[in-house]
């Protein structure tokens, strides 16, 4: 039986599934429910400085992109950091940690970019017994207008500076949460590392307008006739987040920096994908907000089953395993040739492959009068579009052309040796280097 125990930068939890800093972790009641349901850890919703807490809007905070059956594909929110009193939160954190010593509790923080502000709050957090802190440099709405959240995360120098203060005034692990609302995520990651961060977590939410109310002529959610941009999350952001994770994991400067993966993780498979791309653990929010805390049971059973099937006994066996296979386009093997192949027994004759190829690609699929579809090898560039639009899984597959065969499209013999753009004769820089 697979061992799901997680040790992320020295923070132990019974499984690698944490709830992200967000509405589900705003107070004791929710966090206790989460732990009872089986979550390995929580990042407590962001605390601000002592004093009158922030206020939230009193109209709607969320908007959603739905699938046809009201499946939540993407979620947008304009909620701010905790609007509850700092000391109330701290008391609750302390109580919950005492009752659940085996679970991870990380405290998310967002205070002004001044040393005094950090120096004031960090000892208070230290006293709760929580396992670490996460610096919220990511929230793109509301707080960013006040020079916090994403406003800090978009300036690498600020990240480094604040991280350094935290390492100076706090003894436990410091995780820096990154905003995706930047051009190159490696720079803030490197800044966090330079400041002494124990880990980075990403992504925070993406600037978004979820939809527009065409009657009111305003973005949703609409509050008294106006809307504002929010932070986008949920399954829709997963591909964007995974790319950012991989960029950090494979960059020589930041490789080895522990990563906590966040962004649309809904089931065990999503988690496994993040982890093989270099994440030591994952954080979940939208899936819990959609289905409740019970989804943790599927994540645990699914990851266990997959690990058993693959012979992984601990999560360290597979964390980062796909990182060496993430590369730049220029290093992809141009001598690798494949062709689409349609299995006539599985084909249901819908013609979607034909429409896609004929209208938008390479005219590489033939159609007979009795609706039989077949690939024209001399036209097929192996783009994979037909495979992806086919409603029948594995009906169309990509078949590798063995070295020595002649590619019917180029009339060239498929070469055995690797050959990529860096050595390709059409690449002007190949000659420039000579």
């Amino acid at each position, binding site marked *: 039986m697979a061992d799901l125990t997680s040790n992320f930068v020295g923070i132990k939890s019974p499984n690698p599934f944490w709830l992200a800093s967000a509405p589900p972790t705003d107070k004791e009641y929710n966090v206790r429910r989460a732990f009872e349901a089986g979550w390995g850890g929580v990042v407590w919703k962001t605390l601000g400085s002592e004093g009158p807490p922030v206020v939230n809007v009193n109209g709607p905070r969320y908007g959603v992109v739905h699938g046809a*059956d009201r499946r939540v594909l993407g979620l947008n929110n304009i909620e701010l950091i905790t609007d509850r009193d700092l000391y109330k939160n701290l008391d609750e954190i302390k109580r919950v940690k005492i009752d659940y010593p085996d679970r991870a509790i990380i405290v998310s923080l967002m205070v002004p970019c001044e040393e005094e502000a950090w120096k004031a709050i960090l000892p208070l957090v230290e006293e709760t017994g929580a396992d670490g802190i996460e610096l919220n440099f990511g929230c793109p709405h509301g707080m960013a207008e006040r020079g916090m959240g994403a406003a800090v995360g978009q300036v690498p120098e600020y990240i480094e500076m604040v991280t350094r203060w935290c390492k100076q005034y706090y003894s436990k692990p410091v995780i820096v949460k990154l905003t995706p609302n930047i051009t190159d995520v490696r720079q803030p990651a490197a800044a966090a590392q330079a400041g002494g961060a124990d880990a980075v977590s990403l992504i925070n939410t993406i600037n978004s307008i979820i939809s527009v109310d065409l009657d009111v002529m305003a973005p949703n959610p609409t509050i008294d006739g106006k809307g504002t941009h929010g932070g986008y999350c949920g399954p829709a952001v997963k591909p964007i987040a995974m790319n950012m994770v991989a960029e950090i994991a494979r960059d020589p400067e930041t490789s080895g920096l522990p990563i906590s993966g966040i962004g649309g993780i809904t089931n065990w498979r999503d988690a496994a994908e993040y982890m093989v791309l270099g994440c030591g653990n994952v954080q979940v929010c939208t899936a819990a907000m959609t289905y409740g805390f019970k989804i943790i049971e599927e994540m645990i059973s699914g990851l266990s089953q997959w690990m058993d099937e693959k012979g992984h006994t601990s999560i360290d066996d597979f964390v980062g395993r796909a990182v060496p296979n993430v590369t730049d386009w220029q290093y992809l093997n141009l001598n690798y040739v494949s062709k689409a192949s349609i299995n006539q027994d599985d084909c249901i004759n819908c013609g979607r492959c034909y429409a896609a190829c004929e209208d938008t690609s390479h005219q590489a699929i033939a159609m007979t009068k009795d609706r039989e579809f077949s690939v024209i090898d001399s036209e097929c560039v192996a783009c994979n579009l037909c495979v992806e639009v086919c409603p*029948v899984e594995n009906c169309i597959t990509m078949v590798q052309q063995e070295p020595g065969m002649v590619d019917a499209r180029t009339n060239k013999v498929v070469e055995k040796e690797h050959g990529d753009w860096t050595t390709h004769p059409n690449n002007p820089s190949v000659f420039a280097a000579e």
Partner: protein
Amino acid sequence: MNHSTSTAGIVSGRLNANALVENFDDLHAPLSKHEALVASDRCYFCHDAPCMTACPTSIDIPLFIRQISTGTAEASAKTIFSQNILGGMCARVCPTETLCEEVCVREVSEGKPVEIGRLQRFATDRLMSQNIHPFVRANNTDKKIAIIGSGPAGLACAHKLATYGHDVTIFEARKKGGGLNEFGIATYKSINDFAQKELDWLLSIGGIKVEYDKAIGKDISLSQVQSDYDAVFIGMGLSGVNALRCEGENMANVDDAVTFISDLRQTENLSEVQVGRNIVVIGGGMTAVDAAVQSKLLGAQNVSLVYRRGKENMSASVYEQELATSKGVRIIYNAQPLKVLVNGSGLDVEFGYTETINGKLEQTGEKFNINADQVFKAIGQNLSGASEILTLSGGKIQIDENGCTSVPNVWAGGDCATGGDDLTVTAVAEGRDAAININTMLLS
């Protein structure tokens, strides 16, 4: 000699072999992987889900469906089996239309439930076809428990006790195990010898011995078993058949529906099973429907299912009633058999119409006759052969909420006990819960 649906009398081979095989094939084809993914996608993962509450074994239905949707059917099967070790059979025979699927929020809102039964079969088939047994027996406790009967209640009890590390001996009156799963269910609901395969798979937990041809009260006595074992669980079912209590019911070709169903399940060759041209089935439960439908599938020309009360009172679900009529069975409501008469080489059953007045069933005085080559009685079964030291209630073994009988260290469950309701899934729940209680008592 070639027979047809219209051949007079009781003969075999009314339909050709191919037609018979087709007729008795799976009632519902198994879901393909793609179909299962699409079906699972319809589940809303409801909180405190009504389907789960409706299931007598409380299977975590939203969870197992979510596990199918994320490509882990094996984990899904484990979720099912952890509550109901006979989840494979229940997926086939449960009247889901009156249990989980009836209360599915999509049934209530759209009239089209998530296909819970078929999804359960998809997951359980997946694990069982790999011959994986998902549970491990605990260390041996040296406690010995006897179980009377290897039907759903006995098997569920035995398996649970075996997981605790106890040694279990099942005494089975017949030559073959499985109880109603093996002998009492329509052939098209459990094809390819599924009941025996499931039994073998269940026993692979270890620590369970089955002694066949050992009937309680005949080959073994309850008091003997009681003194030889630390605890006894009785899951002996109902082996007696209720009488029609009408004139002529002992005539030849007035048969028990359960015998007809059992013979059909045990046959190697459907072409050799005899059935009359004209059939009358008397009763209103699943046994009546199973006998009527299978008579039709064997090639009987006219099959009448006669029930003494109205459609809404029938214990067979509306779904089952519609299944029967779709196969060509004629259902006559509000009629009661008065006598069985000889009519030439066949029989005539005289019925009287009934009506319910002030909650009481009364004859209207109007009568009619139906010609029949065979009459099947399906008006329920009764307890037969239970030891006289057990206290009975309403003709069944009296048990409390833990499954305890009136006799110390003797538990009971399933159809033979007061909580039974003729459902496989209820018997499984009672056998399982009795095992939990037995374990608690033995270790206290």
